[in-house]
């Protein structure tokens, strides 16, 4: 099976600073990929490179076996819902669909019309008269009706209330259940990602610091708590991602290849949010022990 996205040493430079550096990834098709990281970590850059809106300064990227942005066939395979789910304020819902039909060779008008009906959107309404949630749903409809194999969404729900967010993701997942689709979305809302994603990419300071299948990541990362001790007492099969110490107590987030047999540690499960935060605060690697209290 072709990977949905393969990047090798991928980088993008603006002047002297790298918006994304040394990014090597292989994302399988059919997944929902969560892209997490602080603002400016490189999420939008990665999505823009995948959609072909930016051209790499270093390395290579291949999306569904082709070079992003190279010709009509490639463009038709990739849908992109940009940050803030933009729509044309002065155009009606119907106009948006007409525009979508004109611009996309594989446009599925039946799908678009059915979605608009199900959402209860009045085709004559202009985008500016819609609620934030409805505008986001309209942008999603445009993205889905072009029948992409890969749908990229940049912070699609940042401006939505919890109900609109749930409805947005509900209809995105419904579309995924109906079609062979790979979804890649960036969000700060890790609690949402926990329900949605089966693949996670964490970016920090323009680099990929963690990537992998969520099940595997959660199975191999643990929180160890116990009496205070130094990092050197941790077996080599365990990589310390981040550590914090109080006078008597140590808490470590570790990546383990084998079960930890030392009974003096209490081992507990991590949530996806714990995992993301551990890697975000731990980056870059040479600051691993920054969390040490005085």
């Amino acid at each position, binding site marked *: 099976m072709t990977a949905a996205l393969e990047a090798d040493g991928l980088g993008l430079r603006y002047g002297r600073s790298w918006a994304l550096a040394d990014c090597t990834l292989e994302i399988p098709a*059919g*997944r*929902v990929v969560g892209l997490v990281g602080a603002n400016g970590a490189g999420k939008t850059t990665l999505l823009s490179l995948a959609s072909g809106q930016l051209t790499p300064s270093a390395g290579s990227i291949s999306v569904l076996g082709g070079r992003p942005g190279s010709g009509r066939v490639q463009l038709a395979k990739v849908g992109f819902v940009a940050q803030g789910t933009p729509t044309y304020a002065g155009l009606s819902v119907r106009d948006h669909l007409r525009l979508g039909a004109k611009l996309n060779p594989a446009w599925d008008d039946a799908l678009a019309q059915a979605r608009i009906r199900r959402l209860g959107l009045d085709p004559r309404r202009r985008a500016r008269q819609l609620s934030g949630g409805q505008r986001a749903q309209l942008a999603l409809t445009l993205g889905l009706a072009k029948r992409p194999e890969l749908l990229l969404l940049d912070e699609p729900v940042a401006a939505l209330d919890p109900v609109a967010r*749930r*409805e947005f*993701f*509900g*209809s*995105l*997942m*419904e579309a*995924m*259940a*109906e079609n062979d689709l790979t979804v890649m979305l960036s969000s700060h809302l890790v*609690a*949402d990602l*926990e*329900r*949605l*994603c*089966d693949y996670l990419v964490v970016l920090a300071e323009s680099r990929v610091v963690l990537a992998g299948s969520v*099940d595997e990541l*959660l199975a191999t990362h643990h929180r160890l708590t116990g009496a205070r001790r130094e990092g050197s007492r941790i077996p080599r099969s365990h990589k310390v991602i981040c550590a914090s110490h109080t006078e008597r107590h140590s808490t470590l987030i570790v990546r383990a290849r084998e*079960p930890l047999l030392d009974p003096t540690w209490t081992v507990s*499960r991590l*949530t996806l949010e714990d995992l993301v935060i551990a890697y975000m605060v731990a980056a870059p690697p040479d600051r691993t022990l920054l969390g040490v209290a005085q």
Partner: protein
Amino acid sequence: MLEFYLEPASGLPPYLQLVRQVRQALQLGVLRKGDQLPTVKEVVAGLAINPNTVQKAYRELEHQDLVAARPGVGTFVTRSLGSTSLAAHSALRSELHDWLARSRQAGLDDESIEALFVAAVRAQARGDVA
């Protein structure tokens, strides 16, 4: 029809939460042989979760011989779990009562008892997986 929910604090992976909810519904007789489970599409639209999660849960239930998928129709319950386990309930409950009484005699309060119980369940679950 069964309506699923997710409990973020449960510590269980979402697919296992769905499996457990079906098993519990079978044990309580809420679901019976021949009943249809919600379609993958219905579950993901309602809960906003990954369809792969629901598919994984349904595959696991098939593997446990509790449900069967009829292509193009849906997933149906093939056997119940109720009667046998319900019968075992009362005996287990009385053993648990005795155990609780002993724990209190030993000076444990409710919180410690609960912590001990949860720890034992988790430890055994981990042991079963390994």
